[in-house]
């Protein structure tokens, strides 16, 4: 079948994944969400598992993830995505299940569900977008906001004495025996996107082995919430987020 928009005599070397819908994304320019959505769906495409995949969307900027991902999806209440994913995976044990959550969702209101889902070793993939801010509600302080970080609810900067410390929940989760693969990635450069996609691929493969929870933190930007241009946001990410949230595998299965 001839692809639409393909120029006669030209070869297609790259295209939007088939499991990504044609709906224009509502994300701000430069936002990490769109990139993570795309590589998630690329993996679903490449593995040919659209008919065996169920996703769970969170509350937050990616609340409309199901508008873009052409797989069966459920919208969870704030913080409860991993509990919903547990319910799905338990009754559909041969399905690939992923939950997609932001930092407020996963590491504040949903901490209990997060810890216990991983501790049970639910055979799901948890994707954790950490941009240190509540994006959708207008840039409030998140559990992962850095010390000194100015947000709409920490206008003078986050203070440890008042707000506690930025929560490295991924390191915490890696301690749990139920965690099978725990990694921290980013998508701010082409190389980083490739690595992050590899982590997603591995996580989907591990699901079939039923060895435990796969958890991918994506240290992400929020140009609008951080009040920066996309390039400034990516620079700020490297300079400020990476030292506190270092990139790399935290717990990887022995190969």
């Amino acid at each position: 079948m001839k692809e639409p928009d393909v120029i006669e005599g030209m070869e297609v070397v790259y295209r939007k994944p088939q499991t990504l819908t044609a709906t224009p994304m509502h994300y701000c320019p430069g936002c990490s969400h769109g990139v993570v959505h795309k590589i998630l769906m690329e993996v679903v495409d490449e593995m040919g598992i659209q008919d065996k995949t169920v996703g769970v969307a969170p509350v937050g900027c990616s609340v409309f993830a199901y508008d873009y991902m052409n797989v069966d999806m459920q919208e969870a209440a704030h913080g409860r995505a991993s509990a919903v994913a547990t319910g799905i995976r338990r009754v559909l044990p041969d399905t690939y299940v992923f939950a997609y959550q932001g930092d407020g969702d996963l590491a504040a209101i949903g901490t209990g569900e997060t810890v216990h889902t991983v501790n049970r070793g639910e055979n799901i993939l948890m994707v954790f977008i950490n941009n240190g801010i509540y994006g959708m509600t207008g840039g409030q302080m998140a559990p992962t906001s850095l010390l000194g970080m100015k947000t709409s609810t920490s206008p003078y900067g986050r203070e440890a004495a008042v707000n506690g410390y930025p929560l490295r929940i991924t390191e915490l989760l890696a301690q749990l025996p139920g965690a099978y693969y725990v990694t921290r990635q980013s998508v701010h450069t082409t190389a980083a996107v490739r690595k992050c996609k590899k982590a997603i691929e591995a996580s989907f493969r591990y699901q079939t082995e039923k060895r435990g929870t796969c958890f991918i933190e994506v240290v992400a930007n929020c140009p609008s919430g951080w009040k920066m241009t996309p390039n400034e946001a990516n620079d700020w990410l490297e300079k400020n987020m990476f030292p506190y949230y270092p990139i790399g595998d935290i717990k990887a299965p022995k190969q």
Partner: protein
Amino acid sequence: MAQSNGTDVRLMKGNEALAEAALRAGMQAYFGYPITPQSEVMEYLTMHAPEHPGVVILQAESELAAINMVYGAAGAGARVMISSSSPGISLMQEGLSYMTSAQLPALVVNVQRGGPGLGTIQPSQGDYFQAVKGGGHGDYRLIVLAPASVQEMVDFVFDAFRLTEKYRNPAMILADGALGQMMEKVALPPVGSLPRSAAPWATVGKPATRERNIVTSLFIQPERMEQINLQLQAKYRTLEKEEVRCEQLQMEDADFALVAFGLTSRICQKAMELARQKGIRVGLIRPITLYPFPSAVIRKAAGQVEAFVTVEMNAGQMVEDVRLAVDGTRPVHFTGRMGGMIPTPEEILAKIEAVVAEPSLQHA
């Protein structure tokens, strides 16, 4: 255990009978969190699940997580049950609001205990408002069935699964600590006697042949959200027309009507007997579905009786619905106990006698 005519007759505790009924009704998944006085439900299920291969029984880390696991499993098309007692049910209200909006079927069992707060572990009917008026945020209802015997703890599991799946709205069995703990003879229906209709809306993985399925309660455009609300309200009007259930005892010649649900209706039967021995012609109206409420039956009875006496194990909650149905045409009195106390037949009789002496006097 006795087998007669293929029916399995046993002496069982209410909580255990309900759990056994759920397994026989083809429940595919149960999520829960321990709380007195209903912990036997999950204990029984975990003990007997191996007899039903493939059934998922999972103890969650909280009622909050449990109800959201129910959301996920129901959205994936499974026949799901959850049970708890009053404080735990309060924690589930967010999930129930989401499930009604997402139009997910599930059976929720509330074995009520006395409140408010941590309260007591003794039986109560204090969650009537929460159960029948919505409970969580937004305009919605649960389908609410109120059993009055261990047999109905069994039968209503089947009825509630049928209703929740037919209407794609969560259904609740509103029991109490006494019904959960007491033992009675029960006849158990055979395994697999409740067929499951297809759930083409469920998220099970999208084949190439259909659009993706989305289970959500988010409809950000107000025009769309209003449409969803109108759909829900149409569903509730159908329920009110088609699914009302009510039992009437000795109403044929009654001059006074007792109105009571669940355990209290059993006590009212004794009070009715005592009143009739004294020559007072008392009947009993027992709402079986608390939502939809049998307003028409009560309205009709208002044309016959001199006054109503509503009896509840709370401060007077269903009495408001009785008064709405009667609409001022007859006095509606109330008597009840709270905080885990159970009214005695003699207390109810004393109230009946006071009302007979002055039927129009609205007691505080």
